[in-house]
């Protein structure tokens, strides 16, 4: 098995780096980015990816609770984080966990 085949645990910032906005018991469960349709606006919760991809995504602006827009679904998946457009292979989109953005609009 190659180094990127491993089912890596979800990599998240430590609990102390909690989201700024308050969470409630009704907070929805995170879902893969790849399961959404184009045009969805969501918040980033974490990843189930290899550490290198994780670091690169963070450097590109995918920090916890940031808002992102799904510009194109499928392969590749294109998202916009702030003003940055990022192309993601389907495998990466599967490993990005998001929740619907309730503050949208």
């Amino acid at each position, binding site marked *: 098995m190659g180094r990127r085949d491993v089912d890596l645990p979800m990599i998240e910032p430590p609990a102390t780096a909690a989201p700024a906005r308050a969470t409630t018991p009704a907070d929805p469960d995170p879902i893969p980015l790849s399961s959404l349709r184009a045009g969805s606006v969501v918040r980033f919760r974490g990843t189930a990816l290899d550490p290198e991809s994780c670091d690169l995504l963070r*450097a590109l602006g995918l920090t916890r609770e940031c808002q992102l827009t799904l510009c*194109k679904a499928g392969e*590749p998946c294109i998202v916009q984080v702030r003003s940055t*457009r990022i192309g993601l292979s389907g495998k*990466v989109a599967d490993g990005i966990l998001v929740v619907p953005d309730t503050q949208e609009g």
Partner: protein
Amino acid sequence: MAVAAPQTTGAASSTVRDAARVALIGNPNTGKTTLFNRLCGARAKTSNFPGTTTASRVGRAALPGDWIAEIIDLPGLYELGLDVPETRIARDVLSGAGLYRQPDAVLVVIDACNLTRNLVLVGELLAYDLPVVVALNMIDLAQGRGLTIDGQKLSERLGCPVVPMIARRGDGVDEVRSALARSLGRTPPAQAPAVGIPGEGASIEVLTNWADDVMAYSAGRPSAPHARDPFTERLDGVFTHPALGLVVFLLVMGGLFYTLFALATIPMDLIEATFARLGDFAAQVLPEGPVRDLVSQGIIGGVAGTVVFLPQICLLFFLISLLEDTGYLARAAFVMDRVLRRFGLPGHAFVPLLTSSACALPGIMSTRLIPDRRDRLATILVAPLMSCSARLPVYVLLTSLLFPRQPLYAAACFAACYLLGALAALGTATLIGRTWLRGEARPMVLELPTYKWPSLRNAVFTAKDQGLAFLQTAGTVIMAICIVMWWLSAYPQVPPPERAVALRAQASSATMSDAQRDVWLAEAEALEVKASQRGSFAGQLGRLAQPVFAPLGFDAQLTVGILTSFLAREVFVSTMSVLVGGSGDAEVDVGVIERIRSATRDDGTPLFTAATSASALVFFVLAMQCLPTLTVTRRETGSGRYAFLQFAYMSVLAYVAALVVYQALRAGGIQ
């Protein structure tokens, strides 16, 4: 245009104007290279950072106040905390660690369209306690998107000078020079230092929140993730579409390679003709002897063998630079990623693999586009299996020998050679991914840069830099190899055979026609060359190695042809032509093919049977017979180990495949 900015601390302006050192840094796709070219012009030098294979460019820029700044162009990076080679180099340069001298100032280029993300890097740089100048680039594109950034406010929050600019047009470059000179002069600060800047070691989350805050203050509003550009959306929809994207990709790559082939052949032919004349001239003016042979054949031939690759390398990098500037290459990488990922290669590998179909040298050099080292190594190792143009004359010769007067079969066989090479490359990539370089290609995560017009100036400088880098590093080694190979095939010199002496004596008598004399002289020359080849070290080596190649159906003559073609494959045709009694003309014409077809072995049997031709063809498709390629592999990987590995597995693969083909055909009754 420059914003009056707070100055850095306090030493009095020096009257001594030594060359100051400035580190140029920024995210990828921010126009950093464009600004570097504007500041330094064509005088930049390209090399690698010490002990690495990461390219470094250093240039000199004249600044106001008689300052001369040595500008070091650091690799494009998103943040300094990432654990990748480029980031480690940047950290070492900024802190003056190891072999590096700490810079006197930092010039950071940021993209006005992507302010928040770019400010994360600025926040990290401000912690280094070095004078920082911020070049706020692409303000025209930002304004086109309705985003106006107040440079004065940005400067206040950053505590350093900010120069709004459009590097592509050269707007703001003079102001950057002035701001740099002021920072290097360390004039007293004009205002209080900025507050709230995250300290050293701040997390990416803290830096991003700070950057969001600075963005909101400077632009009057926060980043808007919903603000999507319809033009970009439409183009991305086409360029990354599973079917349309592939069609566009094929058209773009077809255009690129047609241009490469059509345009590069003109200077290449010119170079070859020029060096041939130069060799003739040297042979005429120098007295006969080993020095004349060394200069006219060894040195001039060696230089020609190096310089002839330049047009392809320069033109390819010129075209790639144009494509990269437009923003299209990032989209194309995703289109090819679907195909190449199955074989353990990244989408980025398409340019190196396609380029290797022209020549493996620029192909391997273009793997610099691939960010991940494992993916880059995998691509470098398999790229020479793609059939390059140097294999063409060999394919023409051997397919013609295999299918005489059957052009359709010969054409199909010719195409099969290309297919075999491509399949071998993909198969080897899969194998490498499961053995030496375990793992799949890294899943693609790529910033999709803003679409924009390419910069011709950048493309010209890139082509020049890559051409010079090739000549300075690989070129010198290639020339040395050419000279050694010439020596091995020219020495020891043997006396002319008796028949040749007799023919020359007959030709010197006055009682014959000029046509007859020319025939005899040509025959004498062919016999002399043949004897020289057989008596040379290369010839002796061929006879010594013949038992190894005997199971493949090769006799001593063919073995010499194979061994000499380890310098370059195309040498095979001229060597065989010489060995079977013709001239050393490398052109594959009907006369050469017929002469080689009718050539015999020492026992009188045909030199090229169907089984031998097929075996030799498969050998040439798969073998690593290009020393310049090995040199470039060593240089690009930073280790001779990979060059050796490449040579070893390709040679073993070629040998085994040729052995299987030869023995299977023989077992099937085909001689």
